[in-house]
């Protein structure tokens, strides 16, 4: 029981430390709440996977960098705050509170593009 609680605390700590906080923006809510882990986008081999994702309003989308290279999640239309440099295993979260189509890219490898459709 004690071990279980320790594991739970550790995993929450990891979650809090690993998630970078974006600056204030209308559609972002990066407070790393203890609710469901959110919808995941993997950054691997210089690509966002899935490349296009449709989510419900209020969904928290979490990007995780699996590359050795750093990447930066950047809104194409400045609709949400850019991530800081995401090194290997770093994550970044944005909660999408309004419907719309959110095109984004990596600001340092701009051929990497992705889209979040919020319904």
């Amino acid at each position, binding site marked *: 029981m004690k071990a279980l609680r320790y594991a739970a605390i550790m995993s929450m700590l990891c979650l809090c430390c690993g998630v970078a906080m974006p600056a204030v923006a209308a559609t972002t809510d990066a407070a790393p709440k203890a609710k469901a882990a959110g919808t995941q986008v993997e950054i691997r081999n210089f690509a966002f996977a899935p490349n296009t994702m449709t989510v419900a309003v209020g969904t928290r989308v979490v990007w995780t960098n699996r590359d050795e290279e750093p990447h930066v999640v950047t809104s194409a239309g400045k609709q949400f705050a850019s991530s800081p440099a995401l090194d290997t295993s770093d994550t970044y979260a944005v909660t999408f509170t309004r419907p719309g189509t959110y095109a984004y890219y990596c600001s*340092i490898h701009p051929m990497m593009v992705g889209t979040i459709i919020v319904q």
Partner: protein
Amino acid sequence: MRDSDDNTSPGRRQFLQCMAWAGAGTLWLMQGGVLRAQALTGQGARDAADASFAFVQISDSHIGFHKAPNMDVASTLRASLAMVNAQKVRPDFLLHTGDLTHLSRPDEFDALAGIMQEARVDKTFYVPGEHDVIGDNGAEFFRRFGERQQAGGWYSFDHRGVHFVGLINVLNLKAGGLGSLGADQLAWLKMDLAPLSASTPLVVFAHMPLWSLYPEWGWGTDDSAEAMGLLRRFGSVSVLNGHIHQIQQKVEGNITFYTARSTAYPQPAPGVGPAPGPMKDVPPEALHRYLGIREVRHVRGSQPLALTDEVLS
């Protein structure tokens, strides 16, 4: 047009070039727009004696990177600078063609600046890589390493009859695009080159390749063709880039394009594997064969620049 590079294509000449690189290095002679390679031998020393001046290009030191295949990029940068210091002809200056740091962090810039002081040269010119401008559009980079000639960070200078141009192609990148120079920089470049005679040798340097080397991996610059249009009237143009961590070359008319090795880690040849990034499986004892510096010698009154690539082995 002829391409030659670090990692691809068979052929005896290619094999001999590779053999040379694995040894003491290769002397590149550019004659009439065509490159000739030879191993660094007594011939190289004679050419060095004839040179009116030399400079060295280093690139992609990625201070802050600490993973396979290089856990200590500071040491390999130091080894590169030791090689610079050991050159028989003391270079007039260094060019660092970007990605000084891995993540644009102040402590990484501090470390880079400290190590660069070990180079026994009077001056180092820098242009930023995309790793140097994360989060602040290069404000910290330009504060520390900028030449402060133009608001956008680009600059030019003349050195013993050669006109040097440092361009910035890692800012204001567009979603889905490649490197970018932008209208303001191109307008400045046109003005900067306008008073020069066509016989002035030009050296143009920037981080990302200024030609479409491998756009699928982002290895190119969207509006480089416009810049090349401004350079075409000159008799001798050398374009020096970094970014791809390997030697690639192309001759197009009077314009010769070169990319340099990294002082930190190699990347795969274009299209080899699913994506660019560090070649993690290079064993430590083999790493130095993939890293290196480039020395450029200018012989006054003759068109060619001689390029020497040396590996850290």
